[in-house]
């Protein structure tokens, strides 16, 4: 092998090593931001009923007992949240816990028929062994969904009547 070929080979090896190094590290380095891991949306599906939806990314989960919903104005009269059954496990630290994966739909009764701002606090973790601090996300709910509504469409098209604010970390 001549000198030039040797130099090239070592440079190529160096390049490969540098690339491998840049890509190495624990799985925690590829973590999603909480608002991507737990995609939140909410809409009024009929007068007096809010549907809150979380699309939970693969490899992530949410705790049932960490959800908190509040509405403003307070006179909106938010009722008790109705959760679907989650996965119940007996945790060595927490005892009996209920968690959700995939898609989670929570229903919230509401008295008001006027526009309200829904504030949702949630908390979840990634399977790689990282938990997020509680996240607050808000949605402005204007009126129940009607066909032929003139409301502006959201980017995902489905929740036309929802104006979702940028999720804000608590």
């Amino acid at each position, binding site marked *: 092998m001549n000198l030039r070929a040797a130099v090239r080979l070592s440079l190529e090896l160096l390049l490969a090593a540098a690339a491998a190094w840049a890509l190495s590290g624990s799985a925690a380095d590829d973590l999603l931001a909480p608002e991507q891991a737990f995609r939140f949306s909410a809409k009024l599906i009929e007068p007096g009923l809010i549907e809150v939806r979380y699309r939970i990314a693969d490899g992530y989960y949410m705790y049932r007992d960490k959800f908190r919903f509040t509405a403003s104005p307070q006179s909106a009269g938010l009722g008790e949240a109705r959760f679907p059954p989650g996965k119940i496990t007996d945790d060595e630290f927490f005892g009996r816990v209920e968690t959700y994966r995939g898609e989670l739909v929570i229903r919230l009764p509401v008295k008001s028929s006027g526009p309200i701002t829904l504030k949702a606090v949630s908390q979840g973790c990634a399977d790689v062994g*990282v938990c997020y601090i509680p996240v607050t996300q808000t949605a402005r709910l204007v009126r129940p969904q009607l066909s032929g509504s003139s409301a502006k469409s959201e980017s995902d098209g489905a929740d036309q009547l929802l104006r979702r604010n940028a999720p804000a970390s608590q």
Partner: protein
Amino acid sequence: MTGTGRTLVLVVAAVSALAAGYWFHPGHTGRAPDSGNLGGIMAASLPDMEGKPQAMAQWRGKVLVVNFWATWCKPCLEEIPEFVRMQQKFGPQGLQFVGIAIDTPAKVREFAAKYRMNYPVLIGEMEAIELARTAGNALGGLPFTVILDRQGRLIRTELGGLNERKLTPIIQPSLKAVNGA
């Protein structure tokens, strides 16, 4: 392209890749040691479990493992027995764990007693979250650990669980450098 040209391209590519590797490598936060952000940790003061303010600066001169955690965070709880054991083992050589709990004092006191935590635990909410963020924890994930040498310079930050096997080689060179190097 000539052979020399190709070699030059490879040199540039390799150097760029190394630079990219250096900057994006997880163990490297892209900041010079002792930057303002880390000054932030050493300059911070947070209440302990009794509500008494504790300045981080009091531990300067020790190899510091600052662990952000919470009692509601399972991976955080899993690593704490390891930290208790390591504090016992390496404490005499100058290793100091400091827990910063994003939690309520009552819950932290209960857990600390149950798990016989043998190192100080400070408590904070927004301030602690902000402190972790400025130290490089952009996502607000826990556990998050910042390891500083005896001069308060950053050795490493780690998002996710640590254990004795992972942490020992990180702290050992600094423990040996008694007078700082």
